[in-house]
């Protein structure tokens, strides 16, 4: 059964299915209930499942995320929605000190079937406090897993897998993806949650990317094809763990690596990818890996400057051309 749906609708359907199938699943967060979610992800579910399973919380990110940790300890499967990743800075104690640590510190007595969903990324003129990525802050924490669905199909698959998993999983949903459309085929079997996917095959270079930058990278790849450069585009789908095998296989074939991330490069996700793949593929590389990322600035409010602070398809095309000329 396949259908073209918005990204938010795919998440909504995934939640609906899991809520229906397992009464230990519940959703909590700001305005997830009566209001239906600030990006419509929980639309209609409050009426269907009631207030205990779609819990509108006070604006208390630290404690309602910690509430999810407590509920997970006794076997519930909470899905915590933090309204944006920027607010998750108030919940880092619950995420890093509790969710990621308790299964371990308890000597393995308590699994942590907790899902934390949050929008991230640069949207439209939300200014510096509402435009952060921050995935690198969470990537460095053993005990967490981070999924970054870029399409409605992956959003549907990965949210369902995350809810069914017994470990703390963070879903980062780029704010501009909620109203993007894509095919959702609910009859297709899901790949493993953390497997990367080759979206477009190519022989001249490998572009490794994730989340919203996938779309930009695919557009760049089309422009490159017109210029006779065939880029292989890989969507990581997961930032912890990273599927090194899929990426390394590609780089060993193309001999060139370009990493595209929305956030600034310094100590970022791309640094980990470039370093890891250099270690894996050093002797097969024809040129040093290249990273493209955002400017080293807080995101400005001004629309023109905002757009200039994150990669554009033309930036990817230019970098790929230079890389392939080396």
């Amino acid at each position, binding site marked *: 059964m396949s259908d073209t749906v918005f990204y938010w609708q795919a998440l909504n359907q995934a939640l609906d299915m899991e809520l229906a199938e397992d009464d230990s699943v*519940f959703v909590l967060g700001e305005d997830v209930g009566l209001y239906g979610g600030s990006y419509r992800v929980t639309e209609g579910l409050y009426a269907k499942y009631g207030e*205990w*399973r779609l*819990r509108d*919380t*006070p604006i*208390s990110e*630290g*404690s*309602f*995320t*910690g*509430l*999810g*940790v*407590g*509920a*997970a*300890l*006794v*076997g*519930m499967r*909470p899905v915590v929605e933090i309204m944006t990743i920027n607010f998750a800075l108030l919940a880092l*104690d*619950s995420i890093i*000190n*509790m969710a990621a640590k*308790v*299964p*371990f*510190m*308890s*000597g*393995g*007595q*308590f*699994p942590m079937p907790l899902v934390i969903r949050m929008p991230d990324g640069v949207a439209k003129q939300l200014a510096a406090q509402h435009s952060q990525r921050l995935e690198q802050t969470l990537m460095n924490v*053993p*005990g967490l*897993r981070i999924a970054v669905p870029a399409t409605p199909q992956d959003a549907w698959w990965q949210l369902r897998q995350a809810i069914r*998993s*017994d*470990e703390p999983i963070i879903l980062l949903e780029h704010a501009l993806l909620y109203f993007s459309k894509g095919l959702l085929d609910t009859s297709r079997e899901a790949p*493993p*949650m*953390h*497997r990367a996917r080759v979206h477009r095959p190519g022989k001249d270079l490998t572009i490794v990317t994730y989340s919203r930058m996938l779309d930009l990278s695919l557009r760049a790849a089309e422009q490159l094809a017109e210029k006779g450069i065939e880029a292989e585009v890989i969507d990581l789908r*997961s930032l912890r*763990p990273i*599927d090194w*095998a899929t990426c390394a296989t590609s780089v060993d074939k193309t001999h060139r690596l370009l990493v595209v991330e929305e956030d600034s490069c310094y100590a970022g996700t791309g640094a980990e990818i470039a370093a890891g793949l250099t270690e894996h593929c050093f002797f097969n590389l024809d040129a040093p890996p290249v990273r493209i990322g955002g400017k080293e600035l807080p995101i400005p409010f001004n629309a023109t400057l905002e757009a200039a602070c994150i990669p554009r398809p033309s930036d990817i095309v230019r970098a790929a051309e230079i890389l392939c000329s080396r």
Partner: protein
Amino acid sequence: MDREKLITMLHDMLLARAFEERAAEEYGRGNIAGFLHLYPGEEAVAVGVLHAAEPSDYIVSTYREHVHALVRGIPANSVMAELFGKKEGCCRGMGGSMHLFDRERRFMGGYAIVGETYPVATGIGYTIAMRDLPEAVICFFGDGAVNQGTFHESLNMAALWDLPVLFVCENNHYQIGTEIHRHSAVPEVYKRACGYHIPARKVDGMDVLAVHQATQEALTQIRNGTGPQFIEFETYRFRGHSMADPGSYRPRVEVKAYEKEDPITIAIAESLPVYPSSEQIAAAGPDSIDQLATHLDQAGHLSSETLAELKAGVAETVEAAVRFATESPEPSLADAQACLDCNRGMEVLI
């Protein structure tokens, strides 16, 4: 309360004191390292509260939780081995002094970031309420923890949704080295709970019977479905904050005064088939308790033989625990990985 339960409570207090003093010795010997926060002086709170709880209730505790764990029934061997960082510790040596957990006894952990116990307890309470179960959650925290944001956030949610949580403040008057009048604009901690319409009271935390009775009353209310309760127990730690802290910021006269109120001395005095109500004790004040203790001792309700037997028993338990911890093997890195991978299908995920 029957005499047997009183003797058990006295036993637990004696065990608590002996265990902690021995832990301090083992720390001095280098067998225990890291942060070690000890409980002497506060025994009446853990013992009174936990003896009023049901086995089906959940306990969420802080980093000063060895005694909570022991009273809850985690064997002394298992706790001491964890303090030693050994494989046969209750958390396989991965948690240590500040992170004791026991799934079977619903001991939901020692949390070492101040203020973490509230949201965890609230989450367990949420689940109980959602499932409409008769259980309750007991959430321990110190007076220093009431200044964290999670205190206000979590009390608000617990009250908003009538969650079955008993908030237990162990007010020992010091947040590490800062006395409560220097860290709290409202030093009467229980009054803060009133801001969230949570029934709250202050109880003498040096009197184990008063602690027990107040806890029982609060748990009865909670099981009636009326939402959270809050009790502030006024108590005192005889030692510094941790082994790294000599506690020199406290006036000698203050420490001496509290030592006169030693909950164990008081409990011995009160281990009787017949005893006055906690209201009478509270009204009488510590001087009267001393008089009462003398009187009861002279009346022979608790024989010196029984007391000696109890003390010998806990000494042997503690000795055996140290032996067990010493002989327990070191955990391996593979053990550590297994703890992180509990119920995880790492191999199938990529």
